[in-house]
């Protein structure tokens, strides 16, 4: 497996990806909370 210096797709660095994944998680939790409140 090649290591290290491949160009990161879409974001400037891998930190961009990590932030994106965590933000999506937070958004999902918020959406699910709203869903729970709405249907219960």
């Amino acid at each position, binding site marked *: *497996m*090649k290591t290290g210096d*491949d160009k990161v*797709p879409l974001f400037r660095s891998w930190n961009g990806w*990590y932030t994106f*994944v*965590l933000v999506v*998680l937070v958004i999902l939790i918020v959406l699910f909370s709203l*869903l*729970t409140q709405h249907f219960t």
Partner: protein
Amino acid sequence: MNIADWIVLIATLAAIVGYGVYKSRTSRNLDGYFLSNRSMPWWLILLSIMGTQASAVTFLAAPGQAYTDGMRFIQYYFGLPIAAVVICITFVPAFSRLKIYTAYEFLETRFDARTRTFTAFLFLIQRGLSTGISIFAPSIILSTILGWNIYLTNLVMGGLLIIYTVTGGARAVAYTQKIQLIVIFAGMFIAGYYVVHNLPQDMGLSDALDVGGKLGKMNVITTGVKDGRFDWSDRYNLISGIIGGFFLALSYFGTDQSQVGRYLTAKSEKESKLGLLMNGLVKIPVQFFILLIGVLVFTFYQFNQAPVFFNEKELVRLESSEYGDSLATLRNRSLSIQSSRKEALSAYTKTKSPIHLETLKGLQVETDEVRSSVKSLIRKNGGDDNDTNYIFLRFVMDYLPVGLVGLLIAVIFLASWGSVAAALNSLASSSVVDFHKRFIKKECGQEEDYNVSRWYTFGWGVFCVIVAMFAYNIGNSLIEAVNILGSLFYGTILGIFLVAFYFKKIGAKAVFIAAVLAELLVVTMFWLSEHDYIGLGFLWLNAIGSIAVILFAIMAQTIQGYPKK
């Protein structure tokens, strides 16, 4: 099953097996057989990771889990994206730098052979037993459909898997998982469509979710707080999902060879990371829709008579027992409840009145009482009182059209084969790399390595079939049984890796002692919880095991003394 269903089922499975054998042409060496020559792009890594994790256990038991317990099981996956990020930052670069075959090879470079061997041994026990349970899952289906003896069914299912996996290796596993997931997603979508399609004409998806929600099934987010205090024994809530689920996912994707082996096949570190991160993005929405099918099935059975117990075999046994009259009484009561429910539902869907909602809730309580009474009779009759795994299957068999039943059954087989094949491949790779080549025969040619690898795959297939034979006595829902088993070992394994990555001053002796002590602690706490001495959800065991290894290792190293610079 209709003849058309059988044709669809057999044709689908035969096509997958044929495709797997076709794709088995690879280099006849360890790199080719276990790692597909490290050539896979990120999207194939993603599908392979998903296919490995989503077994028949997911697809069969998850809708049943939502039917009985609501959507809150989704919270179990909230730690997964966080774990994916941590693995990309730490684990992937370390593994790819060392060009290892198994995650445990890394531990010998960091600690010593004893730590590597101990960790690999824990993996083999945990994954071997879990895979046995995962072979059993589709066998329940065959046994229920055909009326076959469950033990014979295990043999048939396990035999097919062994042929497929021994021939295939990692490359065939990855490519077949790609096709399997396409079929699985199509099947999920079709099942979801037909559940909604079979609801009354004036009821749409939103109305169905409204009914399910008002009856407690849309409990997607729960806090675990009861009477003002956090309930540690509550299995699925936001906190246990994020924290406990994080440790479980970190261990599963970071240290379990069945998953590590997937992203080690990547052609570059970038492809590994992308596959893992994309899984972190899509897993929760995918699991949400699988669970949602369970809620829709629940709503469906509000409008249609649900069986008092979904395992037909147990009901037939009960009918012909001394409890037959009691069962008949409960069935009559269920019919009467359903009749009242239809009226209340019709009124509620028109008016959304709180009075009719309270009536519905009261009727649901009565339904739960009837089910509870039936389960009690089944227990007295010496049967298995858990029908969670049969709920979705019952719906598929009773209400899906001809041809689609066969497709959905094929989906369940494919889901099982995908994850079991990856597991057998990983068990064999760890056996060969961490044990056989390490202790039995270090130097041998590529062809011999290849042949030995195939024999180990075969051997593990046989072991897992034997485990499947004993899985029938497990009382919990299968999906919980697999995860409970994981939680007994994952915490300790993860703790060893966390010490390896983040606590550079801790040496081999300290971490080994810590791992043994931590494992004893985890098993003890599990036993205490199972016998109600303490209340502790199983997800917490992952965190406890990991943290215990770290703390015990620090203590042990402190007693030993830290090495001078």
